[in-house]
Structures are given as structure tokens and as C-alpha cells.
């Protein structure tokens, strides 16, 4: 017996690892043309792990205070060995993570994987996406540059449109009436302590659900003949495929981070006007562009309030899909829910593109 198998045996004796492995071996993954969508959850997870690691590394040098935050990021990028790389990976990985999460969400939507018994996976996943966008929004301010200052002004000002408590929430987010150094301190705290704490809880739940319930088979899986149904075990077959994809993603990430290093921009100044051509991060761009097109007044209410309310309602509607999309009787297919999904994708794409080119 080699030393490893001895060690394994000793651990297995105490923790019954064999049970765990046989459980994972029993779990099967349907192999069909839609199998590729199963990888995006794992990709999001990998990018999140990279965020945690690079984030901790950045914490070693970053200083979360308005008068030195910009300089500390400059120091990381210019003086610290490979500091530019760590920062660039953190920024790129953040963006790819949101992208992967969006793809993951839409694939779940179109394969109807949110239906019973997986409603809680959908809810927890949606909350994770919102938290990820919260990470993006708070992290964006931390280098304390011109663009991030105005993005934060606009983003936090929007909370004022929430009835009754809006003003209070804005004050809590900003740490005062205005976006100042107090806001930076708070966002730093949200970004490295509050959000990770909440995120880990929902992530753990999300992962436990998927391990417990297994992958959702495609809609017509039950009607297919056994010959056509091909399943592969999750462990080790699917996991090996997952790892291979992770390797590819790490390569893509390295290429992006090295050849397109993330810019730092100009230090934020209290009095400087908003620079021309200012834009938020791409995943807020479609909302930004829509708000830009809504007129100032729509009869009695402000265009802004209307726009924000519409996005709020649409988000809630989307979140609650498992509630209102019931399985239809056999033989009847509800296409409109697919059309709705396609409409949402086209809306997001069109407004994102308009936002980019104008």
C-alpha cells in the first residue's frame, strides 16, 4: 500500500469519504446538444474563486481612504511586482464573472431548469447575480477615479426614487448627503466584508442544491427513448470536462489581463464636471441607455422614477418566474415564455450596443 492510499484509508475511516464519492459517481449529467450550458455555472464559480484570491492580494496594498486610494492603486500598478497583473486579473475576472453569470441565468431560463423542484436554485442564483452586481458597483469606486465618482453619484442618487425610505437608503450608502471620502470607506467595507459574507451564504446554498438535485434534464428528456438518452457520471467524467474548461478560461483571462491591462484613469476631483463620453460598466449600460431616452416628465411623474420603477418591476417579475410559469398540460407548449426571454435578450443587447456606440 502506498503512502497515499494509506493516508486515504485513514481519512476515509474517520470521515467516510467513500460515501461522498459514490454519491458523486451516482449523480449523472445528461449528454445532449445543450450540455454546453451546464458549464457556465462552474465557470462563474471559478471566476469567483479568482476574485477572492486576487482580491485578498490587492488588500495587502490598497488603502481605502479618499486622499490616498488612487495613489495606492497607482502604487500597486506601477511599483509592486506583478501588481498590474493582479489588478488587471481582478478587473477582467469581475467582468467575465458577471458575463458568465448572465449566460448561466439565460441558459437556465430557456431550458426551464428553474421549474419544480429547482425553484430555490433560481432564487438563490438571482440573489447571487444581484450581489455580484453589487460587488461590481462598490468595487468600481475603490480606485477613486473620475469615472467611478460620477458612476457612484448617479447610481446612489437613483435610490432616492424609492418611495419613503429612498432618502434614508441613499444617506446610508453614501455616508452623508454627498459622495465623499465617507462613501469610499463604506463601499470598501461593503466590498470586502459585507457582500462576501452574504454572498458565501447564498453560494453555499446554491451549490448544495445542485449537488442534492443534480442537473436539470432537458424538457423532452422523459419522452425520449432510452437509447437516445446518454448520461455521464458527474464524478469523474463531468468534473474532468469542467476542469478542462476552467483551464481554457484561465488562459483567456490571462491573455485579456496581460494584453489589455485595466486602465486607472484620472484621479477624482471634487469640483471637476463630469467628463464627456462618461459611461457605466457594460452590465449597467442598457439601463443607463434606457434612462437617457426617457423624457424628463411623463405626465405627472418624473421620467426617472418611471424608468427605475419599470426596471424594478421587471426584475421582480424575472425573479419570480418559478411562481408564474407553471408546467403546461402535456402536448401544449408555452412558447410565449421563450419569446419573453428572447425579447429581454434583444432589449439588453440593443440598448447595450446603442450605449457603446453613442
Amino acid at each position, binding site marked *: 500500500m502506498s503512502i497515499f492510499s494509506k493516508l486515504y484509508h485513514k481519512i476515509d475511516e474517520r470521515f467516510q469519504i467513500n460515501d461522498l464519492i459514490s454519491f458523486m459517481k451516482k449523480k449523472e449529467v445528461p449528454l445532449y446538444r445543450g450540455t454546453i450550458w451546464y458549464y457556465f455555472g462552474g465557470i462563474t464559480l471559478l471566476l469567483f474563486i479568482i476574485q477572492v484570491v486576487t482580491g485578498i492580494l490587492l488588500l495587502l496594498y490598497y488603502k481605502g481612504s479618499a486622499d490616498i486610494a488612487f495613489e495606492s492603486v497607482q502604487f500597486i500598478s506601477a511599483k509592486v511586482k506583478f501588481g498590474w497583473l493582479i489588478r488587471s486579473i481582478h478587473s477582467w475576472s469581475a467582468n467575465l464573472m458577471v458575463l458568465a453569470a448572465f449566460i448561466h441565468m439565460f441558459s437556465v431560463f430557456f431550458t426551464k431548469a428553474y421549474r419544480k423542484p429547482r425553484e430555490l436554485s433560481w432564487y438563490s442564483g438571482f440573489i447571487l447575480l444581484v450581489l455580484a452586481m453589487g460587488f461590481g458597483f462598490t468595487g468600481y469606486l475603490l480606485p477613486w477615479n473620475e469615472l467611478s465618482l460620477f458612476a457612484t453619484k448617479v447610481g446612489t442618487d437613483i435610490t432616492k426614487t424609492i418611495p419613503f425610505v429612498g432618502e434614508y437608503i441613499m*444617506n*446610508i450608502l453614501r455616508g*452623508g448627503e454627498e459622495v465623499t471620502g465617507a462613501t469610499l470607506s463604506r463601499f470598501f467595507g461593503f466590498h470586502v466584508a459585507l457582500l462576501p459574507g452574504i454572498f458565501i451564504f447564498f453560494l453555499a446554498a446554491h451549490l448544495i442544491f445542485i449537488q442534492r438535485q443534480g442537473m436539470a434534464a432537458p424538457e423532452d428528456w422523459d419522452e425520449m427513448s432510452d437509447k437516445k438518452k446518454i448520461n455521464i457520471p458527474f464524478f469523474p467524467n463531468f468534473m474532468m470536462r469542467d476542469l478542462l474548461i476552467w483551464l481554457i478560461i484561465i488562459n483567456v483571462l490571462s491573455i485579456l489581463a496581460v494584453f489589455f491591462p485595466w486602465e486607472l484613469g484620472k484621479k477624482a476631483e471634487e469640483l471637476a*464636471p*463630469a*467628463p464627456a463620453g462618461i459611461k457605466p460598466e457594460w452590465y449597467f449600460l442598457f439601463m443607463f441607455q434606457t434612462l437617457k431616452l426617457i423624457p424628463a416628465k411623463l405626465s405627472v411623474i418624473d421620467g*426617472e422614477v418611471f424608468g427605475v420603477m419599470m426596471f424594478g418591476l421587471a426584475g421582480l417579475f424575472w425573479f419570480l418566474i418559478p411562481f408564474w410559469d407553471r408546467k403546461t398540460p402535456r402536448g401544449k407548449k408555452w412558447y410565449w415564455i421563450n419569446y419573453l426571454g428572447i425579447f429581454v435578450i434583444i432589449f439588453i443587447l440593443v440598448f447595450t450596443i446603442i450605449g457603446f456606440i453613442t
Partner: protein
Amino acid sequence: MAEDNFFQEKQTRRDFLNYILGFSFFALLSAVLYPIFLYLKPPKAQEVDVSNLKIAKTTEIENGSSKMFKIGNKPGILIRTNEGEFKAFSAVCTHLDCTVQYKKDENLIWCACHNGRYDLNGKNISGPPPAPLTPYNITVQKDEIFVSK
């Protein structure tokens, strides 16, 4: 019968204790949450008196140009029109709190964030801003420009 009564009495006593316990739990919860809610909201920054703020010299600013200044905790904008008239406004866009700028080529005030436009009287003329910019009073003494709210 007596047993029944005894049983009932015991039940109500237990109910009463549960009620007290539940009540004290909420009391404890609010005693914990109340200070936290207040703690979250930062103390109000002291309002700076801006009755007469010296912001620039007339010689500093040419016709058709502008200067940013700080009034209280907010940015303000001083504009000298092409005709040589001075105007001062709060530079906070009424749309979403961005900082506006003077656009010389179009001779108006512009917010880059969402393409909002104001004329040189501060009136919102196009784009999303719902209200005009807050104007400030200007007094010129010798060659010094003062603004007040």
C-alpha cells in the same frame, strides 16, 4: 373537573410566560436594532454659511468661459456669457447629481452623464433633467465676485 381546571390554568400560565418571553425577545431585538439604524445614518455635516462667498476676480474670467467653485459641500459654476454678464448656478445636475459644465461651442450648460442641457438662465431645455439649476445671487465689488444663496 378540578384536574381540568388545573390543566387549563397551567396552560394559561404557560401562555402568559410565552407571551412575556416573546415580548422581551422583541424588546431585545429593537434595543439592538434601534442604535444600529441610527448608527448607519451619518451625522449631518455642518452647513457652511454661504451668504457672501468670494469665488473669483473679474479679470480671471474671459467672456464665454466658466469657473467651478465650491459652495457648502457642493460644486457651483460661474459663467461669464459672451456678452460679459456673470451668472452663477449650483453645478449639481437636477437629474442624477452629476456635475455640469459650460459648453462654449453651443453656449449652454451641459451635463455629460445623460446628455442634459440647460440654457444660460439655468433652465432645463433638453434631455432628462426634470428641473432648472438653482441660481445664485452675484455681487461684484471692485473686481471681486461674490455669490450668495
